C-alpha cells in the first residue's frame, strides 16, 4: 500500500515564525499536493508539484511556498506564520492521471 507520511501530527507555532511541514511518499508518484482543510470550506489546494523542482500554485498560495528537491519529498513552507494559517494541512500524492489520491493523516497547525 502507498504510504504518505507527514512529519508532525500536531504543531504549535508563534506568529511570525517560519514553519516547515514535511511530507514523504514511498510509491514513486510524480504528483504531490498540499491542501488545507477548514470546517465548512472543505479541502483547498495550496500548491502542487508534478515533478522534481516543478511546482504550480493552487487556489490559495498566498503566504505559502513549497520545495521539491527529491521525488519522494514535498515540503510546505509558511514564511511568516499568521493566525489565519491555523488549520489542518493534508499532503497527498498520485500518479499522473490523478484517478486516485493518497493522503497523509494530516498536520494540525496552530499559530498563536
Amino acid at each position, binding site marked *: 500500500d502507498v504510504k*504518505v507520511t507527514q512529519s508532525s501530527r500536531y504543531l504549535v507555532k508563534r506568529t511570525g515564525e517560519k514553519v516547515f511541514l514535511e511530507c514523504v511518499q514511498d510509491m514513486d508518484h510524480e504528483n504531490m499536493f498540499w*491542501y488545507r482543510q477548514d470546517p*465548512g*470550506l*472543505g*479541502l483547498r*489546494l495550496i500548491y502542487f508539484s508534478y515533478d522534481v523542482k516543478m511546482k504550480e500554485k493552487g487556489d490559495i498560495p498566498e503566504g505559502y511556498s513549497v520545495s521539491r528537491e527529491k521525488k519522494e519529498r514535498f515540503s510546505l513552507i509558511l514564511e511568516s506564520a499568521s493566525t489565519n494559517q491555523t488549520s489542518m494541512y*493534508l499532503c*497527498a500524492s498520485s500518479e*499522473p*492521471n*490523478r*484517478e*486516485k*489520491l*493518497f*493522503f*497523509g*493523516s*494530516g498536520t494540525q497547525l496552530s499559530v498563536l
Partner: protein
Amino acid sequence: AQSVTQLDSQVPVFEEAPVELRCNYSSSVSVYLFWYVQYPNQGLQLLLKYLSGSTLVESINGFEAEFNKSQTSFHLRKPSVHISDTAEYFCAVINTGFQKLVFGTGTRLLVSP
C-alpha cells in the same frame, strides 16, 4: 471550471437505517467523479469513483453511488449504516483531462446506536 456542492454539512442517522449523501456538480466539460472518506484523525481515502461504463459504482463496504448526467448528481447511498461508518465524506470532480481535482465542502455522517 468545475464545482461541487454538498448541501448537507451534517447527516445524523441511526444504526441500520439507510442514508443518502447528496452531491451535485457543475461543469462545462465531461467529468470523472469521486467520493473520498475521512475517518476521525485520519487522512482522506478513496471510497469509490466513476470514470466510465456503468453509472452505478460500488465500494467494498456497501456504499454505492450513481452518476446522473441529466441531474448532474453523484449521490452516495448505503441501505444500512454501521457505527463504523461515522466519518466525513467528500465528493470530488475532475475533468476528463485530469487537470484539476475539485472537492466539495464535505458531509459529516453521524451514526448513533
